[in-house]
């Protein structure tokens, strides 16, 4: 049973996080850990340009996510949800999430990033057809999920958004 001082789990993420002694202890430990990382890096890399490049990538990763990837994903998700019938949304959402992530994983292979090494044992597969196979698997699973939802609905049981066999 939730109390008035605890955040209800269905609530949007809130600012009511604890900032007591345990938080400050964790801050101390966390800062020490980060300091280890900084010392290790400065020790391993003397070159200023390389250090600057590393910091640029560290900050750039944040920015790339916040300014490019997050808006893109939200836009695609919003458009897809609008276009999709409500009942089909859970399996379609799975299909989109899985397809996007597998595309990310396949991109280096599809772009043949290992070609410059001249080593044919790096990225030895035909990644275009391999990737197509993985996408087919994803959407077959999504179709099975959708079929299971339809069966559940037709049989009069309340709709359960699980894959076949899950209760």
């Amino acid at each position: 049973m939730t109390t008035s001082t605890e955040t209800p789990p269905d609530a949007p993420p809130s600012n009511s996080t604890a900032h007591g002694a345990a938080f400050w202890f964790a801050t101390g430990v966390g800062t020490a850990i980060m300091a280890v990382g900084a010392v290790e890096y400065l020790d391993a890399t003397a070159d200023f340009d390389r250090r600057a490049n590393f910091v640029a990538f560290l900050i750039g990763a944040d920015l790339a996510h916040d300014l490019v990837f997050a808006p893109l994903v939200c836009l695609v998700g919003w458009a897809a949800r609008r276009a999709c019938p409500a009942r089909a949304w859970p399996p379609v959402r799975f299909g989109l999430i899985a397809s996007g992530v597998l595309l990310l994983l396949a991109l280096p292979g599809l772009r043949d990033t290992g070609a410059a090494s001249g080593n044919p044992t790096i990225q030895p597969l035909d990644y275009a057809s391999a990737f197509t196979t993985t996408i087919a698997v994803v959407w077959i699973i999504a179709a099975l999920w959708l079929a299971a939802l339809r069966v559940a609905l037709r049989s009069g049981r309340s709709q359960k958004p699980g894959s076949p066999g899950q209760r």
Partner: protein
Amino acid sequence: MKVRPPTWNHDLRDERTAAILGAALGVAFTVCFVTGVISHLVQDSSGWFQLPARPAGFYRVNQGLHVAAGLAAIPLLAAKLWTVLPKLFEWPPFTSAAHLVERLALLPLVGGSLLLLFTGLANINVWRPWDFSFRAGHYAAAWFAIGGLVVHIGAKWSATRAALRPASRAPDLASDRPPRVEHHRDRRAFLLAVFGTAGLVTLFTVGQTVAPLRRLALLAPRRPDIGPQGFPVNRLARSVGLERIDIDDYRLVVDGPGVVAPRSISYSELAAMPQTSATLPIACVEGWSTTQTWTGVALRDLLAVAGARPGAEVTLHALHDGRQSRAPVNPDQAADRHMLLALRVNGEILHPDHGYPVRAIGPNRPGVHQTKWLGRVEVR
């Protein structure tokens, strides 16, 4: 179910979803951090951190877990960041010094985590669109991310515990909202989609180190059964100028302060010595591995012939200079019966890309230490 117009304050952007994804990421990143630090220290040139010779497959499992957990974390991190995205735009940006600290810690946490997963995925695909050393940058980013994570856990601990408690599934009695049964179902469907994606990522990549699953490894950058003599190569012979070796001129030198009788042994003399066979994995730091049967002279036999003192430290030197031309063998490994100077693999003479004429291969050693094109065994 009525179609609800999607809003910024999305159904799924709640404490429980964030907490579950956060806990899963915590597990994945802890596995990555522990296995990653082990791997980093083993390769450290000072050699203060050593692995014993047994279990023979420990490093292989360590690296396999590292890369598998890292890849599986990609969908988990993507979903977590999506779930908490509205918090990026909170106003005012902070309400106390502690709150500011909590938010600042997100920079190393999120930036470090994203950089880790990006550089990890890129590196195993031999793609390095950056100027810093992968090893140094990936390792430092790990400490930044874990440090940021500790601060984050410190701030979120009690809220996470509350959100993960089973009782929280009961309707919120503090509000007048009706039970959100549909909401719980959709959360389950969403999490199933995310964790299912992580499962597919693993299914389509882990075969690069778990041999029985290799045919499913459609998106892995290596296959453990593809390459000269049936397994992959990291460094080609031509990249170190050793495609052709005059075998009559070749000598394996065994010297150093730790031997009584330094030797310079020809290839045919090596082949004439008692041969030992061992089935051992090569485990690359990039998370792939392959098991083959190696035949050659046991290092401890060679050291005995040269009169090496017991417990000696050994350094292997390749015929070439530069990167990966040197590797340590600690006393425990040197004494192991399966620490070999291999002349053959699976019964065949070593291919030049696999280190002809002689390569070192031993139990529980990272791939970079299984020196190819061996030229000298230095004993101290």
